[in-house]
């Protein structure tokens, strides 16, 4: 059990950074992952009246055990990296509203935007940056929803400790899947990686996996169903090479098969591609002038922290130009 404190309440109590819900902001940023935070930093430095509205401070990065590919940072826990991001942004005293869910936005006749929050609050801004990131993709197979929270899990660092000494499966073949398997191998009795094609993970991550002797890998194998009684007891898989179906027993299934964009709020208003990602051009402009988007929620490829951060910076600079043009 980890007793080490992961404190993260730095500014949430400080009055100076308090979020004013009634004022008209130059720019409101939705999301406080790397894209949203870097956008806030750039917008703040430009002198914009900017606020950040988000559900979970830090976004997906806080769910990441370790980050080893952010330039200048050879190793950091996801949380430590987020703390550094936050501390940097806080130097500009940018107000942040946490635990807020944006349901929709609307462009008014005078060109300003209204953000509607779950719970009824309405916020106002001249421009918006949507940096809402993504959430775990589900397998979409029978039994998955039924056993969600009863064996089926989507956050390895959160739920891993509950599977101490048990048998778990990780579904997926990318970096997140293999990293989850590495973390789980330290706690669980056994880890089985099941993936329908070949590994896509980086070699350096696969090397870490190979150091464990409680890990089994089934590639070219597709999970068809989660089975169980009160709790899950295993999965039914199809071996694509032999065409055979069999059962793999396990107490847990960690689904790490990629992400889907959090673009619900833009579904009716912005142009999305067929994966639901918000279409942006190289200036991070969306199909509505004044609405910009950055990070995992957009069509920009390669969902990575450094890329999301860079895109956030770009979106803020474009938004700043946009707001300046309104003044003229």
């Amino acid at each position, binding site marked *: *059990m980890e007793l080490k404190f*992961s*404190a993260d309440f730095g500014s949430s109590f400080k009055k100076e950074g308090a979020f004013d819900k009634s004022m008209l902001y130059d720019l409101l940023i939705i999301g406080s992952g790397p894209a949203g935070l870097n956008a806030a930093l750039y917008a703040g430095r430009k002198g914009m009246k900017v606020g950040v509205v988000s559900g979970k401070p830090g976004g997906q990065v806080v769910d990441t055990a370790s980050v080893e590919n952010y330039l200048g940072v050879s190793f950091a826990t996801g949380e430590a990296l987020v703390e550094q991001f936050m501390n940097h942004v806080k130097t500009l005293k940018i107000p942040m509203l946490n635990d807020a869910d944006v349901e929709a936005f609307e462009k008014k006749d005078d060109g300003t935007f209204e953000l509607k929050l779950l719970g009824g609050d309405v916020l106002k801004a001249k421009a918006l940056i949507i940096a809402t990131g993504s959430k775990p993709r589900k397998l979409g197979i029978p039994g998955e929803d039924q056993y969600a929270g009863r064996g089926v899990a989507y*956050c390895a660092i959160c739920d891993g400790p*509950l599977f101490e000494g048990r048998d778990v499966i990780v579904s997926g073949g990318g970096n997140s899947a293999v990293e989850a398997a590495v973390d789980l191998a330290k706690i669980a009795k056994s880890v089985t990686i099941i993936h329908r094609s070949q590994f896509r993970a980086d070699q350096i991550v696969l090397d870490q996996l190979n150091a464990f002797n409680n890990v089994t890998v089934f590639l070219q194998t597709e999970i068809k169903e989660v089975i169980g009684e009160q709790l899950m007891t295993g999965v039914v898989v199809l071996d694509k090479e032999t065409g055979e179906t069999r059962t793999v027993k396990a107490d847990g299934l960690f689904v790490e098969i990629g992400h889907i964009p959090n673009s619900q709020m833009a579904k009716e208003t912005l142009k999305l591609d067929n994966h639901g990602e918000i279409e942006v051009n190289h200036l991070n402009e969306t199909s509505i002038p004044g609405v910009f988007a950055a990070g995992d929620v957009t069509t920009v490829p390669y969902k990575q922290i450094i890329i999301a951060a860079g895109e956030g910076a770009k979106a803020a600079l474009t938004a700043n130009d946009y707001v300046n043009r309104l003044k003229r």
Partner: protein
Amino acid sequence: MALLNEQLQGQLKEVFSEMKNDVTIAVFTQKGACYSCEETVSFMEEVEALSDKIHLEKLDIEADSERAKEYNVTMTPSIVLLDADKKYVGVKFNGIPAGHEINSFIPGLIEVSGAGEALPENYLEQLNALTKPVNIKVFVTLSCPHCPGAVQKAHKLALESDLVDAEMIEAQTFGEISDKFNVSSVPKIVVNDKYEFVGNQPLQVFLQEIAKTQN
């Protein structure tokens, strides 16, 4: 050895300067086998030392069984936060709120001191309409980054309604009760031991589940 390092102590002092009224931490332990009781008490002692507004009472679940009953304490270690009138307001932590849970424990102190932010009007209306007691259990692990958010919401609801009692339960410390409620993903929220959901969901979802207990 101090659990809270110097940097964290400094941060906490600053946060505690926002406290409005006094708060008493009542920590229940047990003689003999009690996983993390010792650490929990040391942790609370260190917290108490950081603010004049924070007071600590060390209790024993057996010797002080009356008090335990009053606050519905059934496990150890268990931490109950009492307001300035030493009244139980429904805010409880079962198991040490270390790791990520420091992020629900510290805000809990601030909230119980009366310095928290008000809930939106329509949530308050829903809470005021309650007529039957509600118990909210929030199962967590200490390595779960979004668990404290769910604990904070449950505690906020408890603070705003006399009928709501909300408790964090550290799933690894209390394996038996976690197994009873089939906890295999956290945060897992169980309302009146019957209605459940997983994840740090919006307050609206908490209120929807709570509403089911009122029929």
